[in-house]
């Protein structure tokens, strides 16, 4: 059941919300149990068999977390953590990487290691990272809440279950404490529904609107045809925009939905295509994943504490594994290595110049965008060969492959230009609706601080756009809903569901 599906909007969400409102009158536990049941139903709607993975994993991780919280420091505690992390990674490895590993091992050795089709349970990558973070937090003594019901809700809460934001135990559990779980107020509902509407518009109208352009260009490359340079540029730009509006739209919807139930989730995007460097980009793109990789991989590897060489190696390892997390394929690995290398170069450049040599902001933003766009070609292409065909076409190089026939028309360029103008000229949803998000996220806090607290440093247009319960905003949110739920628009899965 997609957030954009009629069944979700007109049946599941109203029923869940009404049930929650009624049961919260009985008590927080009753409300939480209702939300857990609704979340499990939401997850099972795709495939009921997935529950056989989700429910035991909640039970096992809760037991491990409690055991870790009780243990005093020592080898036993370390072993317990290692076992917990290994169990979670083992499940992820089996479902996501076993086929990939077997295929590559088979290629190397010539053995027949085919494992057949292993169906990837929805959201397993996100759920695994969330639980690993919980176990590490429990090991560090940061996850002390003994309530199983609150833990089960923290893991299964449907707005963030399938594709994040990847939340910390410490971000959600305090919000669920007796007396602190905010009542579902009219203000929260107004803000949450408006954010949900904006997210739906971003996904259904903007992202899905440019998806066919990307599909045509990348489709030609996947068939071994060399797209025309104009087609390749249109395709790469369209995918760059599609991915952003798709995933940030999903994240906005998730945060808006959570707010309806009195829970705030962290923001996941902060105008990433306004980034002036690749370091800046990773502080703005999929922020909760970047944070996880930093806190639970980069820093444990040593971070920047053991010299420049070790720091760069750690960066490269972190980003390569980050690439692999997105999908079991060499194009994802290469995408991770590409971004790791760019980060390495960016840090090295800053180190050498001491931050004195800076390009003018428009130029550095354009350059960062261009580099990120080339990265997305690796990310989207179905194979190395297809990625190469796209990159050759982007660079205007003539390869030996037969030419594709797709030629983007003026309305397609207009769509791309409109979305580019939107990402560069308009404020993001965190700026527009700051109260809807959990600002525990230091990245976003820093951005907001840099922009000035009052009213988020936006220019005059930005300040006018900031969300308030006004007639104009009600009309805009209703229009976003209306256009997002137009039945003639196909309901396409969110791109990040495949990861």
């Amino acid at each position, binding site marked *: 059941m997609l957030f954009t599906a009629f069944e979700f909007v007109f049946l599941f969400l109203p029923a869940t919300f009404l049930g929650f409102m009624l049961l919260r009158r009985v008590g927080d536990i009753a409300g939480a149990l209702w939300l857990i049941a609704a979340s499990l139903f939401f997850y099972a709607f795709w495939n009921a068999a997935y529950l056989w993975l989700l429910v035991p994993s909640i039970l096992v991780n809760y037991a491990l977390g409690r055991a870790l919280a009780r243990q005093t420091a020592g080898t036993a505690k370390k072993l317990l953590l290692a076992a917990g992390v290994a169990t979670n990674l083992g499940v992820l490895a089996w479902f996501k990487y076993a086929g990939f590993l077997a295929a590559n091992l088979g290629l190397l050795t010539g053995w027949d290691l085919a494992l057949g089709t292993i169906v990837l349970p929805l959201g397993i990558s996100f759920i695994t990272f969330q639980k690993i973070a919980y176990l590490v937090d429990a090991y560090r003594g940061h996850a002390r809440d003994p309530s199983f019901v609150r833990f089960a809700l923290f893991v299964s809460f449907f707005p963030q279950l399938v594709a994040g934001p990847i939340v910390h135990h410490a971000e959600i559990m305090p919000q669920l404490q007796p007396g602190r779980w905010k009542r579902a107020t009219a203000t929260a509902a*107004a803000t949450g529904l408006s954010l949900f509407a904006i997210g739906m518009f971003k996904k259904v109208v903007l992202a899905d609107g440019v998806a066919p352009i990307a599909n045509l260009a990348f489709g030609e490359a996947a068939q071994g045809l060399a797209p025309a340079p104009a087609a390749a540029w249109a395709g790469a730009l369209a995918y760059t925009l599609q991915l952003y509006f798709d995933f940030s739209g999903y994240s906005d919807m998730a945060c808006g939905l959570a707010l309806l139930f009195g829970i705030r989730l962290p923001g996941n995007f902060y105008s990433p295509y306004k980034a002036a460097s690749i370091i800046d980009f990773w502080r703005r793109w999929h922020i909760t994943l970047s944070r996880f990789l930093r806190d639970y991989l980069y820093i444990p590897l040593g971070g920047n504490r053991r010299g420049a060489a070790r720091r760069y190696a750690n960066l490269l390892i972190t980003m390569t594994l980050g690439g692999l997390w997105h999908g079991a394929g060499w194009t994802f690995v290469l995408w991770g290595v590409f971004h790791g290398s760019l980060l390495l170069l960016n840090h090295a450049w800053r180190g050498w110049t001491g931050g004195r040599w800076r390009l003018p902001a428009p130029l550095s933003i354009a350059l960062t965008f261009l580099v990120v766009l080339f990265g997305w070609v690796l990310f989207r292409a179905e194979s190395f060969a297809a990625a190469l065909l796209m990159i050759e076409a982007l660079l205007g190089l003539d390869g030996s492959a037969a030419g594709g026939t797709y030629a983007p028309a003026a309305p397609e360029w207009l769509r791309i230009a409109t979305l580019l103008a939107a990402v560069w000229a308009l404020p993001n949803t965190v700026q527009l609706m700051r109260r809807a998000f959990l600002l525990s996220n230091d990245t976003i806090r820093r951005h907001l601080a840099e922009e000035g607290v009052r009213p988020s440093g936006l220019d005059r247009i930005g300040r006018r756009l900031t969300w308030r319960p*006004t007639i104009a905003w009600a009309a805009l949110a*209703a229009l976003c*809903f*209306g256009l997002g739920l137009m039945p003639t628009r196909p309901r396409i899965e969110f791109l990040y569901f495949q990861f």
Partner: protein
Amino acid sequence: MRLSAPRYLMLLAMLFPLFWLAASAASYFLAVTKCDGRQGAADAYIAYCQDRAYGDFEHAAFFFGLERVPAALAETKVLFLGNSKLQYAFSRDNVAPFFAERGVPFFVMGFGHGEQSRFPQLVLERHPAQPVLAVINVDPFFTDGITQPAAFPLQHPVAGRIDATFKSLMQRPRAWLCRRDPTLGLCAGEPALMRSRATGQWHVSAFRQGAEPTLPLPPPATVDDDEIDRWFTRALEIAPAFLETLHARCVVLTAVPSAAGDRAARRLANHLGVPFIAPEIDGLATIDGVHLDARSGIAWSDAFLRALDPVGRECGAW
């Protein structure tokens, strides 16, 4: 003007349906105008359009009981069931007069996309029919398959109903306008298959724009005995439940001429002890190697109806 949160929510709740209805109605009207509406009879609706924005409608119309489907099914005395080959054979000008002479309402309930028995069974469960006589085109019909246009309303009951309702409503104003002036710009478009609300027949002549190509009817393909055995075993499991839902006093099996041949249909008819009617006519031709062309459709369905006449009389259908 700043509002209180409850007022904001009330305004949102009022404006959303307005915007949604307006945007949806406009987009469906636009989708309808992309389909050829110049040749639709007064009682016909667009069952399928080659433009993707409209696409298939007949499956959802039958499933949700739109376009007079429940009434037509309840009234019919002779019900034809099968796929698009059946529709092409019995959507000809000679068919209605045959039943009119006998004063018997008939309905052709075949579906495109190669639909089999599961979907019509679901339709009949929702909108019961009590035909005296049912004619089933066994091609091979009694299988577990279900097509994507049929699966959509099943899997998405809310989205499917909304989509079908808008398609049903928004083609009416366009049909009204185009009946008055078919030269209007919004009446031309991609080929569209119109379907009669009264008889279920397709207006096949309007679907193909320009001259109809003529291709010889291919000879029956060689089918492996094991394959027929496997189908037959499964068909015997499926058929009883289907026939029970059908509530027909008499059942006739047929096999509209095609490369699929009639071995399977004959064997099932023998086993069930029901009549099998499939006249053999020389020189049949198709429009695409699959569906009978106009001349062949009339010739074959004429022969079929002549053979059906005594069966129908014996059964009490007329």
